[in-house]
């Protein structure tokens, strides 16, 4: 185990030394010092067959077989030239990263700008092909999904951008090293019934003054299917034949406090419930606080607050972040 670890480390150091920092940053132009070309596995097989043909041609003193062997060598060289030219001049820009709730993978947006037509472009991420684009003729926006579906925080690893055009005999590739982090938020699960009590009780404990405005409703909203009939403004209905709902100040802008410790279930299930609650609260425009073991996020509203909370939920339980 240790040996493998050392080898891996050695490989990483070597790669870092060879690649220097040419591939860092959010924009990459493929040119002579950022394109790498080697025969692919298929290309090695092709070369073997060419050598076999050569031996056959020599031993049987057969000019035609010999010509076929040379033809294969020449095609291999031409494939290298064509493959290199296919990728040469391509500009790849990283635009933005989008985190999603599990099980949806985080997505990255790229803009590809080819100098000429670029064929069979593949995005490879931790040895998985995550995107194959048949042909790129003009400035194109590409979205790739990273192969992460589990809750967590992920530092984006090195991307490999590869093309084996035209015959699959040579691999022409480059790397893109994004210093970015993406999150997979916990899956949203509605809390269990008895958990709700805990939350509600938590609301009272939260030292928040509730405005007692049961009669002083703030505004009327159109009744929608599934809403309780208790809050229908019948007076309004009598006048206009329209079902309206009395929206009370305390219901629409209730302040809520969510605490990991007050929920039921396993760690993952609790995180999922919190993910649901936080998101719902944000949708309803409620201010909320979140207490996660030692961490405390005080009452706030807005997308930024939501993102902070969700990210905190995603990293829950992480020890030291690995920044590979």
């Amino acid at each position: 185990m240790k040996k493998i670890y050392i080898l891996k480390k050695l490989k990483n150091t070597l790669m870092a030394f060879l690649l220097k920092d040419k591939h860092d940053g959010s924009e990459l132009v493929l040119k002579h010092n950022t394109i790498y070309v080697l025969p692919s596995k298929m290309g090695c097989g092709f070369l073997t067959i060419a050598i076999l043909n050569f031996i056959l041609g020599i031993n049987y003193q057969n000019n035609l077989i010999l010509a076929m062997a040379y033809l294969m060598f020449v095609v291999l060289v031409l494939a290298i030239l064509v493959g290199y030219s296919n990728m040469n001049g391509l500009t790849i820009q990283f635009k933005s990263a989008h985190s999603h709730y599990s099980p949806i993978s985080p997505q990255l947006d790229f803009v590809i700008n080819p100098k000429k037509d670029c064929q069979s472009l593949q995005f490879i991420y931790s040895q998985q092909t995550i995107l194959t684009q048949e042909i790129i003729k003009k400035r194109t926006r590409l979205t790739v999904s990273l192969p992460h579906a589990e809750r967590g925080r992920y530092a984006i690893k090195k991307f490999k951008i590869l093309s084996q055009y035209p015959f699959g005999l040579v691999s022409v590739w480059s790397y893109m090293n994004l210093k970015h982090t993406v999150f997979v938020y916990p899956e949203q699960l509605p809390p269990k019934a008895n958990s709700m009590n805990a939350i509600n009780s938590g609301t009272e404990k939260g030292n928040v003054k509730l405005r007692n405005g049961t009669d002083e409703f703030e505004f009327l909203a159109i009744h929608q299917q599934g809403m309780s009939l208790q809050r229908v403004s019948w007076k309004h209905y009598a006048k206009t034949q329209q079902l309206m709902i009395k929206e009370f100040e305390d219901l629409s802008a209730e302040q809520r406090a969510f605490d990991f410790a007050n929920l039921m279930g396993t760690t993952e299930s609790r995180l999922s419930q919190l993910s649901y609650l936080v998101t719902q609260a944000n949708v309803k425009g409620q201010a909320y606080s979140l207490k996660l073991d030692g961490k405390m996020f005080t009452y706030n509203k807005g997308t930024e607050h939501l993102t902070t909370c969700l990210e905190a939920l995603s990293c829950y339980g992480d020890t030291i972040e690995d920044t590979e």
Partner: protein
Amino acid sequence: MTQLKNTKPINLLLSLIYLAVVMALATELSVAFSVLLGFLCVWNLAITLTNKKKPHTILANILAGLCLLFLLYDVGLGDTVTLFVAMLILSSLFKLLQARNKKHYQTIVLLSFFSLSTVYLFSQSLLSTLLVSVLYILNFAALMLIESTHKIKLAVKQSTKMLALALPIAVFLVIFLPKLPAFWQLPGPKLAKTGLSESVNPFDIAKLSRSDELVFRAKFSNTNKPNAPYYWRAIIHDQFDGSTWLVSDFSKQQQRSQIADAPNAPLLSYSIIAEPSSQPWLYGLEQAYSNSENIKATQQGLLIRKRYLNNTINYAVTSANFSADALNISSRNQNLQVDNSALNNVQTRDLAYELYKTTNSDKVFFNKLSTYFLKQGFSYTLTPDPMTSSSAIDEFMFNKKRGFCGHYASAAAMMFRTVGIPARVVSGYLGGELNEQDNYLSIYQYDAHAWVEVYIENEGWQIFDATAVVSPERLTGSLSQIDSLSGEFTNNLNFSLLRFNQIPGFNWLRLNLENLDYTWTNWVLGFDQQKQSSLLKKLFGANQLWKIALFSLLVLISIFLSYFIYLNWPKNTKQNQHVMSHYFLEITTWCDKHGLKAKANITPLHYLSLAANEFPKKAAYFAEFASLYSKIRYKEDYFTSQDKKHGRDLVKLIKTNS
């Protein structure tokens, strides 16, 4: 494993490639096995075309095992090369029947690069070269289809382009890269070819089936051309068992060990390009000798291949007259041996004794026998009656009196031996078709002949050919040119252009194809180490190895470099412009000329509506063009050739109809 989207065209291409390979190799494999392979190709083709599922792995594996057993039974272990090729094709086909993912298809395409080369082991004619070249293009197209989802047509077009560029470079390499000697001896494939046989027994043959297959070509220098007839010697049969003439163990022993020295007084020299053959025997006139490294020259003046029966072989020969030296005892005895049974062919023996009794001289007997064949009403035929009795020679000499060369040679040789004159049957070829343009003789399988060589004291071996006495036309030119036999001759041939010999156009075509084939064989197949070094010497002078190396390297580098520059050359922007924009530009220039003043930065549609107002007569055309333009350029509809034509017509209408 990566699944492929376009397996259909890949399967289609690969099935067709293997079908063609099987057809090209069909003559070398047994009928049953060829049919089996063909069936596998068609099966895969049918599965592909009808979008059915591939057979289950277990079923396919069981079938593959059965086919392998059948192959081993059918071909046997003796012919290793054919067995290997058959196994290669069989396994590729079964792999194709089971192929599901990208890796499988890649393996099959790689294997077929090797399978295609093996076709050349059996046939190197111009026709098979063309076939294999086309299959190479298709195979590269299949490789391309694995990597991208192109249409077949586009893939074939691109791979043709690629190979059109690569082929001249490969040919350049063949010409200029030094040729290496063979690393090790490989077994040659056993060719399914007709040809001479080591045993001659003409009497049970009812119909001499003849083929128009080329055997060899002989090229004389212009100044030193011998006169016809040309007796091309190949095999000496010196053992007679009463009905069949064989190669004696004595001769075989000699041929194995002894190799003759160069003759002292060579009469003529010429070169021969021999086609692949299933026998080691080569061809030469009289006492032939060659110092080519792949050839053994025997004491009896025969030439034998050392190896590589499957190859076309090109060798220089010098021929001399037979020496008049006395025969040694063992040779003499071998050439006098007659079968022991005194009961067979008694009549013929008595005839021989009678003819000899009156003369008592070998030379006179030689002439008398000639006259006998001439006078006694013998005739030449390719369709003799079979003679199966134990005294077949008697039956031929006294009853039937019709036969081909084998009958006459067999009878005459026995008669010579009976009276104590050493004689042997020689088989080979007689004559040949002269190509006047390039001054070479083509000798075909139907020129096969058998005659007798008789040893006359103090004169050496002499040719005695009773056939020549009976049918003198046979001596000059080729069998194909004898008018009296043409009907009988062409009936005995398989289907070929020769059947249409009498029609001038066809004969012209045949001779020209023949010429092309000669050039092909001589310059492409026969381009060996010797020819290469003489060509390079001509181009660069002697011992200029570094010059050759530098030249080759520079040429290669400059080709690859210029191709690379071409690939990376910035594309002309005009080419990228859409045809519709181009049309629009034409319209604006026309409008400008006719006085339409518009602001520079308005949209094309706005411009067109302005133009419609300006030229009310053509408003309809402008409107139509505007709708076409917005459909193609803004809604990004598919641009069909019909749209293109429509646009062009509208531009024309706008411009001309003033």
